[in-house]
Each structure stands twice: as C-alpha cells, then as structure tokens.
C-alpha cells in the first residue's frame, strides 16, 4: 500500500466512502475496523463484549 503517499485515506466499502481522514484517524475509526476485521473484533477493541 502507498500510505506513504497519502495525506488522507478514503475508505470505500459497499460503494460508499465510509471514512475520509488522516491515516491515524482512519485507523482508529470503528466503522473501518468493522469493515476490515468484522464487528466483533471492533467491539472487543473498543472494550465492548
């Protein structure tokens, strides 16, 4: 991936841009985590069940 080139990352999921922000902010975005890892992982990381 060319994150090295990016001031911002746009995450496309199911034909929508679900996040558009700096790489750090996108990495921390719960919806992005869900899209890539599944909701249970994101919940676990967020301290949920």
């Amino acid at each position, binding site marked *: *991936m*060319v*994150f*090295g*080139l*990016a*001031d*911002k*990352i*746009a*995450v*496309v*999921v*199911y*034909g*929508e*841009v679900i996040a*558009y922000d*700096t*790489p*750090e902010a996108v990495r921390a975005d719960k919806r992005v985590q869900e*899209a*890539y890892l599944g909701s249970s992982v994101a919940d676990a990381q967020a301290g949920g069940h």
Partner: protein
Amino acid sequence: MSASARSEGPPRASSAPLGGSALHGVFSKSGEAKSVGAPYSLELKDLRKSFGKTEIIRGANLAVKPGEGVAIIGPNGAGKSTLFNLISGRFEPTSGDVLLNGQRINGKKPFEINRMGLSRSFQITNIFPKLSVFENLRCGVLWSLGYKYTFFKFLADLDDANERAEKLMAMIKLDKKHDVLATNLTYAEQRALEIGITIAGGAGVILLDEPTAGMSRSETSRFISLIKEVTVGNTLLTFE
C-alpha cells in the same frame, strides 16, 4: 510509514513545485482548462453507479483539496475500480456528480477530462515496447496535447515536446536510458515510465491505479519517493 509521512505536515501542497507546476511553463493546455480558485480539485457528490440491477457505487461523497494526496482503500469488491473509472470518464454515473476543479465532468469522454486537467495511469501494456524511453515520453506529451492527427501543428511544436520529454525523463530518473527500448527496461523502470507518461500533460489531478502492484519492498519504497517527487503540488489519488 504513514506516521512519518504525517509528521512532515501537509507536504504535498507546500513543497517546491517539481511536478505539475514546474512543467506547466512548457505547455499550458491543461492549465487553461483549470478553473483557479475552486475549493476542491475533485469532488464526488452522491455518486451512484449501477450495472443492470446491481448498484455498485451507492452514494459516494468525497472532497479532495488541491495538492492533497489521497489513498483510496477498501476491501475487494468495494467499488474502487468502478470509482476510478467513473472519475476518469470510462463509466458514466447513473446519478450524482463528479466535479473537477469545480466543473462537472460526468458524461465527458476520458480525453476531454484529460484536457481539463485530470490524468490517469494506464496499464503497463500502454507503453510502447518497441519505442525508446524518450520516444514513449514524447508520445505522451504529444498525445496529451491532442496531436494525433494535426500533423502541421505537430511539427511546429516538436521542439517543445522534445524539451519536455527530456525534462520528464530526468524527473523519472531514466535520463541515462534515453534510447533504451521500453521492452528492455526492468519492471520498476517500466512503471516509472508509465508515471512519466501519466504526468506528461501537466495535469493538476493525477489518478494512479495500484501504482506499486507487483513491486518488491525495496522497489516500492523507491517508487513511492519517486511518485512523491514528481507529483509535488499536484492532487494525487492512488487506488489500492
């Protein structure tokens, strides 16, 4: 890697122009079409695209500021390629708008969008394998200016095109390969040549489709620095 990229601040817009603007001096074709002062280089507004009954792009919104570098990422099948094709004019949106420097470009042909200041990378097969590095770049320059059939205009501007091709060759660090046929370049050099052709027209907005696909790790990092260098001051979208 991204952390260090961020700590440099917003580097793409503020650094000295090596890419687009430096080259605009030679030819101003794409510069003319650019509406200066638009708040965004590229905007997607509730963009939708269906193929048959299947909606692939479902209301995409994006607003990219001039000089920003944006990586478009997403899981396989998310619609990245479709977005790339919608922006570059290969597909027409079902609804919604694509704005380039504030001007609506949906429904326009790829070459028209190119003249308006957006350039996309082509697949590796779009370099001419039996032409030299220099000739490939000169073709890129001439093609971007629309000299396919206007032979007399072509002759008049050939010196400028040569000069610009030389400049591009130095920018992509292939000046030592001036007369080498494209087919005899390494894979990474061919990709660099492809970048050179993509930026040949001096477009302000550059779209790159998987720019580092197929490269080794060390090639990738070198190539990223190269892309950074040659697109400084430009708006850059990479599709991963």
